[in-house]
């Protein structure tokens, strides 16, 4: 308006932050993904073409981590969606709604490291409340974090516990925004609650459910702290998430920067694809005020 430079000055700090902290690392990552760059074998690097990328296909732990991440997406995310939607409808209009709502949101506010501590105690083989609860039904003790299948199930359950509240919150907020007259009108016309849900509420909630779905998928790809705190990827490679495996390759085990970079590039590509989908779903441009309706 007055001076074209001033608005640019205002974005300058953020711009400088992101240019130095994201562009440079990304360029570095792509560059190193084509090189043999292993700090444990000295810092010397050399160009090796696609070898790092090809290595992924013959690396059984990488494939295991890929599989477990897929399982997490395939099981935890749908469960979170169904449960979140169910809980939102369950508590709507109930007595003490506000207190119940606030209580149900607590898990997503607890830092993941703390939930890790809590769940590790709950899953404890000899003294944990989970096994105690099962023993009431005559079910023998389960080694929750020591057995491959149960450890995977255990991580999935923690994810469900921590993130169902997020889905619940989104759907609940969406439900609040549906005008009550719309529901009343349908009731007057003789619709039972099933029809109201199917023909009034669900169509209005559908975009939100889609957004929740994709956001959960994106965040599931980041799963790291819970694994670190409870199973440390074990037993064997059973509960390695993809993010956790990159950490092991790039930091805790090997300092194999080149290979970790190649793994990261793959994750980055998948994430960017998903981010694009979210942006379409929420009509990001219009929301930000570029094009479309409004100004």
């Amino acid at each position: 308006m007055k001076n074209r430079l001033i608005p640019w000055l205002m974005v300058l700090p953020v711009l400088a932050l992101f240019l130095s902290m994201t562009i440079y690392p990304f360029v570095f990552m792509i560059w190193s993904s084509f090189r043999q760059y292993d700090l444990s074998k000295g810092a010397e690097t050399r160009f090796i073409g696609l070898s790092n990328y090809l290595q992924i296909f013959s690396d059984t732990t990488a494939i295991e981590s890929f599989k477990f991440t897929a399982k997490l997406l395939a099981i935890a995310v749908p469960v979170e969606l169904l449960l979140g939607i169910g809980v939102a409808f369950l508590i709507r209009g109930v007595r003490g709604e506000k207190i119940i709502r606030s209580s149900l949101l607590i898990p997503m506010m607890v830092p993941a490291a703390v939930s890790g501590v809590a769940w590790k105690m709950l899953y404890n083989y000899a003294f944990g409340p989970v096994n105690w609860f099962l023993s009431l039904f005559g079910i023998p003790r389960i080694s929750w974090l020591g057995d491959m299948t149960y450890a995977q199930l255990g991580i999935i359950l923690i994810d469900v516990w921590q993130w169902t509240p997020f889905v619940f919150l989104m759907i609940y907020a969406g439900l609040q925004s549906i005008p009550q007259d719309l529901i009343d009108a349908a009731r007057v016309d003789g619709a039972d609650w099933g029809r109201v849900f199917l023909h009034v509420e669900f169509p209005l909630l559908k975009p939100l459910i889609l957004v929740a779905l994709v956001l959960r998928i994106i965040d599931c790809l980041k799963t790291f702290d819970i694994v670190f705190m409870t199973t440390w990827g074990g037993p064997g490679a059973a509960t390695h998430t993809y993010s956790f495996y990159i950490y092991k390759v790039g930091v805790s085990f090997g300092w194999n920067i080149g290979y970790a970079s190649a793994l990261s590039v793959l994750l980055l590509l998948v994430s960017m694809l998903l981010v694009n989908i979210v942006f379409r779903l929420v009509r990001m441009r219009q929301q930000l005020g570029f094009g479309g309706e409004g100004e």
Partner: protein
Amino acid sequence: MRTILRVLRYILIVICLVFFLFPVYWLVITAFKPAKEWFTWPPTFWPTQFTFSNFFGAKETEVFGGTTGSIENIFPYLRNSIVVGVSVSLIATMISALAAYAIARYKVGGAFLAEWIISIRMLPPIVSAVPLYVIFSRLRLINTWWALILSHLVVVVPLGVWLLISFFREIPREIDEAAYVDGASVFQTFFYVIFPLSAPGLAAVAVLSLIQSWGEFLLALVLTNDARAQTLPIFLGRYITGWRVAWGPLSAAGIVTMLPVVVFAIIAQRYLIRGLTFGAVKG
């Protein structure tokens, strides 16, 4: 029939409450149990003897012949969490507000810049963790507050910018224009007119930034290596890996890590909902 459904509904609600609250309850209750009750079968759901010694007192706790860390040495980590969290929160609010205002009012950089900033929020942090380690070690910033502050800013600023763009857009343009007519510069308008009007939005960004920085695990794990800069979540992570874990002090440390965030989040709940639902829900 109606009553049966109502009763069923309340039963389901109680089951949900138990499932979502029990892990937190267990953590809290363990923090108040004396050492002999950490490992009992059946587990005790209410401590027979309420104790604060997991928080204070015992320097080292003996468990099955081995000693494990106690909450005694948590203070450097608490200090680091506070320094990093508060700095991140203040800097993030300031620079997000500046950028969001320029984007909302002047469309600086167009849709591309805005979308690019926001998309960073959705990328997995592990992707940049390894390159950041390499860069920070060249700059000799590994194991300093600066490494954490800078990297956490990258995590929190996108959400702040996003939230504030929609906030500023709700403030009528006429207000800015009136200020210009009165002879105020862009910066003056921003600081004296827009800033006070958007206080709730700024507060939400500050609280959200603090919460995210406080709980952040991966970057803190990669970029720090001892009590000089490590934060509370890393403190917990260090103690949970051992074979002999003193559950009492660890739970007490968990409470110290959890409490500020949960209290903040509950107080600011109304404002947070917008941020937490990712701007996908209006209102």
